Structure formats: C-alpha cells, structure tokens
C-alpha cells in the first residue's frame, strides 16, 4: 500500500518554498541597486551571488556525499 499522500497544497508549498524565497531575494536585490546607494549595492551583490553559490553548493554536496 502506498503511504498516505499529503495534500497537494502542502506539496506545492514544500516544493516551491525555496524557489519563491530565492526569487524574492533576487528581485529585492535588483531593485535595491537601482537606488544607487552604497550599502544597498552590497545587499544587491550578496543577494545575486546567492543563487550562484547554490549552483555550486548542491552539486558539490552531492559529490562529497557520494565519496563517503
């Protein structure tokens, strides 16, 4: 017997929670630099670097996990 399914809405939230947060981070980062203020530019750089770091982190974690 398959185990009981969680509701579709809970599923969607679980799957899309992280992408949604990342999307918000990117959008606020891009908007922040439009103001041209120095501290906000730093926020922009960090916000936009986050997806790049994740692109490295998850494959790296998988590769390390495989070696163990």
């Amino acid at each position, binding site marked *: 017997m*398959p185990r009981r399914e969680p509701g*579709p809405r809970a*599923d*969607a939230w679980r*799957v*899309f*929670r*992280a*992408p949604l947060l*990342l*999307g*918000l981070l*990117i*959008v606020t980062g*891009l908007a922040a*630099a*439009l*103001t*041209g203020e120095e501290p906000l*530019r730093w926020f*922009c*750089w960090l916000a*936009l*670097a986050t*997806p*790049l770091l*994740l*692109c490295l*982190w*998850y*494959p790296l*974690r*998988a*590769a390390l996990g*495989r070696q163990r």
Partner: protein
Amino acid sequence: MFDARTIRAWYLLHKWSSLVCTVFLLLLCLTGLPLIFRDEIEAPDRGVAAAVLPQGTPDATLDQMVAAARQRYPAESVPYLYWDEHREHTVQVALTPDLQDPRRTHRVAVDARTARVLDEPGPDRGFMHVMLELHIELFAGLPGELFLGLMGLLFVASLVSGVVVYGPFMRRLDFGTVRLERSRRLRWLDLHNLLGVVTLAWAAIVGVTGVMNTLSTPLFLMYQRQVLPPLLAPYQGKPMPEQLAPAQSALDAARRALPGREITTVSFPGNPFGSPRHYLVWTHGSTVLTSELYTPVLVDAGSGQVVRAQGLPWYLRAIEVSRPLHFGDYGGLPLKIIWALLDLVTIVVLLSGLYLWLIKRGSALEARLAGFERGAMPPEAV
C-alpha cells in the same frame, strides 16, 4: 498539484517553446557576455582627448561645434549631436549625406570648449560591433530585432512552463537534490532543474526586459506620431523659415525650461527620429534611476521657443526602466561579474535541456509522463 493531463500539456509547452528558442537564446547568451563588459573593453581606445584647459572654461556654442564639423563635410546635414559620456568635454556631431538613411550617418568628434575637431570615430566595426548587431538584430534591422523579441517571448513561456513542470518532478525530492550515482540522464535532469529554478527570477527579468527593448523602435515611432501632428499642424503648407534659430538658442531654451537636468543629445530639424520643424533636446536626471528617465524638450526651429517639455508616456518609461535591468550595468563591476556568471549558468541550463531532449526520446521521461497519465507511478521512480 495538477492532474496528469494538465501536466503533460505544460510539459509539451516547455519542450517546444524551449526547442524553438534554444539556438537563438544560446546566441544571445554568448554575444551578451562580452557586451556586459563593453565599457571596460572599449575604455582604452577612446580617441583624441579634448584640450586641457583651466576648470570653468565655458563651452563654445553648439553652432560653432557644428560649423567645425561641417567644414569637413560642407555638403552634408547634421541629424543630431550628443555629449560623449566616455570622453570629457567632447561632443560627437553626426553628419549624413541623406537624412532619411540613418545607416549613412557618421560622426566627427569636436572639443566642446575650443570647437576644434578632435578626430573622426570610424564606422562601428570590429568584434564588439558584431556582438552588438547579432545580439540586437542579427544584422537584419527591425525585422531581426522583432524576431529576437519573439524568441524572447518563447523563452519566457519556457520559463513559466518549466516552473509548472518543476512541481511534479520535485514532489518527493528535497530542494537541491542532485542524484549523481544513478544515470547520466538523471544527473543532468537534476542539474537542469536546480540551476534553472535557482536562477529563474534573474532569467525571467532579463528575458522580459530584453523583449521590451525589442519594442522600443516601433513604440517610439508610435509616440512620435501622437505628439508631432498637432504641433506641426499650424505649419501645414508653409515653407521652412530661411534662417533657423541657432542650435545654441534651442539648448539655452531647454535649459531654462528644465533647469537642473542633464542634456545628452540635440536632434536637429529634419531628423527622422525627431521633428521636421523642431529641435529635440533630450534631457535626463542624474541619479541611477532618473538617469534612465528622459524628457525631450521640443523647441520651435523658427522662433527658438520651447513648445513642449513633457516626460515620455508610460510605455516608453517602462522600456527606459527596463534597460539597466537587462544590461546589469548599474551596480558596479561586481554586479557585472555576477551578471556574466548567471549568463553562464543559463547557458548550462539551455545546453542541458537540449541534451535531455536528445537522449530522452522514447525513453524513461516520456514513459514516466505516460505513467502520470495512468495515475500509477510516483514521480521520482525513474
């Protein structure tokens, strides 16, 4: 989240919208890469510098600058001139033998304070120019530009449909799962999903703003057609005045009408992107955001009086604001480097998508989707 048939429809949309646009998107990503660093790459080669004069030396008049340029080309007309943002105290005077043919326009750089000719920037050629032409219009003018806009729309469709199919694929997987130990196909599927979803918002913004930019020429012509006829109506059937108001008087009038704004370009009467009877003085603000927001001041070429000084309509405003978000050139060098890296990630997403399509035909993925339809298989069992 969705029933199986809906998922399959979205999957087909993702597959076909991506397949059609992938080659062009790869081209856009590759040509866009050097364009991000255009300022840095072109910086060493800016031509003859303006004379070193004490600070506060006033500018010559525009008419003196134009006269200096026209001395070299007495038979040609001036469609516009602009202040070169990369060369201090330098005005580029455009000249053309035929006002109706913008492709024959060339430039003479003039020292803004001495009104002496500095040099003549050759026609745009070379690597950067090829990249720019390919990126904007595939060397095919407006049709090429609109075609790339269409490809951009397909890219946006593939992003949206990609998000929708991401749901069922990831239902039983943790965010960021990369299964290296199973098949090569599964490894690339996971990477495609991960890199795609992580950079999604950036790709969507650059995609949408790119599409908006492809519409700028037709939308500007539309605006011109709304604004000019009422202003030109009183001149219907009357000949051009023998003596035009000096260009400098148009500039001064525009400065008085909008004090504090920077002036970038003056379009002369007869320029097809201006007015047959007016000088068009383009002004903008000086902060990161307002420097994108232009206000054209129309100055009557006969009387030298300002007849209109209003900001652009919302659809052109939207394109203006979209530009920095497409170019990534508004947050210093770090943002440009990030832009380039995100561009590279997008190339990996495009290529992995292509790879998945090439090796998948008749294989597990299709079988799996058929499985969704029968309502049988859990999505992660490949």
